[in-house]
């Protein structure tokens, strides 16, 4: 740097290291300020606290303008909001294959939406997206293990004005929500010890894609499984050629062959392939209702049968007795 500025090395050294006279002067000045009594506050108004960062941009552990910070935020929000998440490995799918698979998936899900008009439609809000495994692992830790401290009540914040975010960021106060968001250093430190603790962690390597549903709906899950991971023996057959001819396009078939279902996270619990198929095989609310009606109907029919039974047997006995008596009368 020095040759470019045109300063000789000696001068630069002098500039960088204060000379002995300068040092002496500084020490004397410091002693003077230490000994002089503080000026009364009435003479000099206190300077307003310097804002270290804007209110709309709270401090974060990683610079917020990085793509990975924003992905981390997005994954944390996704993990906090979705109750049903399927993890797939995708091995070198082409973009055309992704497009075709997503098309078939949305067609299948909208068909399920039409069959169950009572349930809220999920076809538009179900999403198949590629994730970055490392960032997702960190976001999973935040979503699972990090509970931000409750925000202080208004009375508390008035009592401790020193914790206002404008005045300092050197001593983050954990009770202030501006320091405890998912990207904050506080959150990072809180979940650092849970590294590799979550049971889903071994799955998070290699090329990954997640399928996320806004609610746990077994019929929709079943439709999605029969598209993405068809398994005839487990009860998830691929749609027939007549029902959806688009599924038998070359691109869809090639893409589905390269997708591999690894596991799932269903309402916080980690399931493997068999567990996912079990959830997909559940009847759902509609099926349960039908089962309940059938059960109640059968019980009612039984009850009626039992109650009728006594009367009927009495009637049968009486009829039999009458027949006998009539025969005896005829003989006489």
């Amino acid at each position, binding site marked *: 740097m020095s040759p470019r500025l045109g300063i000789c090395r000696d001068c630069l050294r002098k500039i960088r290291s204060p000379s002995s006279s300068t040092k002496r002067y500084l020490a004397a000045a410091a002693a003077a300020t230490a000994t002089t009594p503080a000026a009364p506050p009435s003479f000099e108004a206190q300077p307003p606290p310097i804002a270290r960062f804007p209110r709309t941009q709270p401090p974060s552990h990683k610079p917020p303008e990085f793509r990975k910070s924003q992905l981390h935020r997005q994954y944390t929000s996704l993990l906090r909001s979705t109750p049903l998440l399927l993890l797939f490995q995708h*091995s070198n799918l082409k973009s055309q294959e992704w497009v075709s698979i997503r098309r078939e998936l949305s067609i299948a899900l909208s068909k399920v939406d039409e069959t169950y008009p009572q349930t809220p439609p999920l076809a538009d809000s179900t999403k198949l997206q590629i994730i970055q495994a490392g960032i997702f692992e960190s976001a999973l830790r935040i979503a699972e293990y990090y509970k931000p401290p409750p925000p202080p009540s208004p009375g508390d914040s008035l009592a401790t004005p020193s914790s206002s975010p404008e005045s300092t960021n050197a001593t983050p106060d954990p009770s202030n929500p501006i320091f405890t968001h998912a990207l904050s250093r506080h959150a990072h430190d809180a979940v650092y010890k849970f590294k590799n603790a979550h049971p889903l962690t071994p799955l998070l390597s290699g090329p990954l894609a997640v399928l996320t549903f806004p609610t746990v709906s077994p019929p929709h899950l079943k439709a999605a499984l029969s598209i993405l991971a068809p398994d005839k023996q487990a009860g998830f057959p691929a749609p027939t050629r007549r029902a959806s001819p688009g599924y038998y396009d070359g691109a869809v078939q090639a893409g589905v062959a390269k997708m591999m279902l*690894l596991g799932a996270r269903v309402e916080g619990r980690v399931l493997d392939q068999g567990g996912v198929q079990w959830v997909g095989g559940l009847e759902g609310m509609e099926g349960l209702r039908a089962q309940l009606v059938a059960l109640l109907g059968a019980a009612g029919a039984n009850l009626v049968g039992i109650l009728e039974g006594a009367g009927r047997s009495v009637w049968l006995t009486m009829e039999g007795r009458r027949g006998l008596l009539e025969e005896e009368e005829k003989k006489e």
Partner: protein
Amino acid sequence: MITKHLSEVTTKFNPFSKQAKTCRIFLATLPANARQTMKINSKVLPRDTDAKSELKIKFKDGREMQFDPDKHSIKDVAEEVDRHSRVLNRQAELAGS
């Protein structure tokens, strides 16, 4: 990794074990049109299984390789596959010229 001499890949792994990484990354390194040029059988084992994961590779010249994913990392597998593939490359070059 040179994959053009492979004819068949058979894998079996439990994704919830750490050793599955070798199999999974091997599958991910195969090219996009791999299923047209070779046969790929991959099986995902259940989570609480005792079965061992395996990775078997067959070459077009009939050579078979079997790897133990517990011991071999993807680096070792790629090294071994490349070693034989380079031999096949050289043979093909000599035969062609």
